[in-house]
């Protein structure tokens, strides 16, 4: 399940994908599933 707004990264090449539309299935890169990234902890600056 792809979660809206979640970022996924490729453990091999470091590419990052952003889920812009929620849906089933998973995103692949370098012939493997991309892994969800941790939330960032930057303070709001704008």
């Amino acid at each position, binding site marked *: 399940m792809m979660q*809206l707004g979640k970022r996924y990264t490729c453990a091999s090449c470091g590419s990052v994908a952003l889920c812009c539309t929620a849906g089933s299935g998973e995103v692949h890169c370098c012939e493997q599933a991309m892994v969800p990234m941790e939330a960032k902890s930057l303070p709001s600056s*704008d």
Partner: protein
Amino acid sequence: MDSANIITILTMAAQGFGDRVALGPAGSGTTYADLLTLSGQVGDWLAGADADQFVLVDVNSDLMPALLFGAALAGKPFVPVNYRLADDRLRRIVERTSPSLVVAEPSAVKRVEGIAGVTVVPRDAVPGLIAQTTPRLEPVEGSDIAVLLFTSGTTGEPKAAVLRHDNLFSYIVSTVDFLSADADECALISVPPYHIAGVAAVLSSTFAGRRIYYLEQFNAEEWVKAAAEQSATHAMVVPTMLGRIIEVLERTGERLPALRHLSYGGGHMPTATIAHALELLPHVDFTNAYGLTETSSTIAVLTPDDHRVANASADPAVRMRLGSVGRPIPSIELFIAGPDGKPVAQGESGEIWVRGTQVSGEYLGVGSTLKDGWFRTRDAGRLDADGYLYVEGRLDDVIVRGGENMSPGEIEDVLRQHPAVREAAVVGIPDSEWGEAIAAMVVCHEGESVSQETLQKWVRASLRSSRVPELVVFRDALPYSETGKLLRREIRSEISPSA
């Protein structure tokens, strides 16, 4: 993949939390779903207009986000222009956007009418014009430029900084977590729409799901009143704004209990001002954000924890960090370059160079100024041993006296620490012996006064004698732009008319 488009920020928000209020008062404002519809209507209207650029000559209004997102849907650059410019300068800028469609504040319509290829629409007429359109929800194939911002160059005509969809989209995705705002959060926005912070605020707030409440323009009394009435939890201000806000808070006793987070940037924050703010508002998280128009806003942050640690520390090196802009954000590479473009030794001053996908470094008609992706900021700075960045001002403002480079900020900080001094600005003026001599313009606290000699002694007590101002002039106020930038050029030409 398809190129990024900032409209995705809004379509995601409408998909994820469409019922949340995006804009206006908490109970009756515009929801994200409504904002998407409105933006789609603006997009349809604009797509059919005989215009390459979409210009805004206006103060803040609730229409601004729909115009920004609508332009993205129409595939046309959004060009918010400084409405405070003198008539001739404003017209020259609008002429350069032709063929264009201009939305103007009603009283500004006359100022930009009659330019070839430019259609002017009063802001009040927009709702009627878009009412009959069918909301366009997919972007038209068009320009990949999202926003053009005219920057006030030190010489010549202003340059139009190009911010592509890729720059802004990657900035938002790498600095803001989607739907990270609690349902009660509200950002009070008082920076003008033609400032990068005004553009970034719309995008960041939308992606986080934080309600925006606009002030038409900044005024300290109105700001405090709106922050209290709207229970604003977040706000961004420039240093001069914070100084005035503090004065109002002290006078009225208001302490804004709902406020959680205040970020500041856009100029050097006097250490005394921020230390005072930390004392007055202990419940608020402060963030210092450093960035430029050409970098799509923030590239370094001094976090709330950094503020607390520095303010509580007895170690001068740690305490000094209150005057830094913190550390580069993870998606930005940064180093300090010498005149040869190579990194200087750790701790030394030089020019701040940055690289990252949010960095544009591009101007319309000039092209990209990046070399291997690196953007020369023209800001002087240094990094301490822990990676904290100190911005020393514009490279052009560095004073070269007898072959020695010195930053005005260092001398200004010392002057400001004198109990009689409220504000101070230091500039270089032509000098036949030294090349440049140091001159200071000083504003005293009300009812206070101090002599040139006393201030010279004061500076000599903490800095090398070469840094003592040869001349100190006293004024009632320093000249600032409306976004809080100190106008050093004006100070220089006032002190030394031949400069």
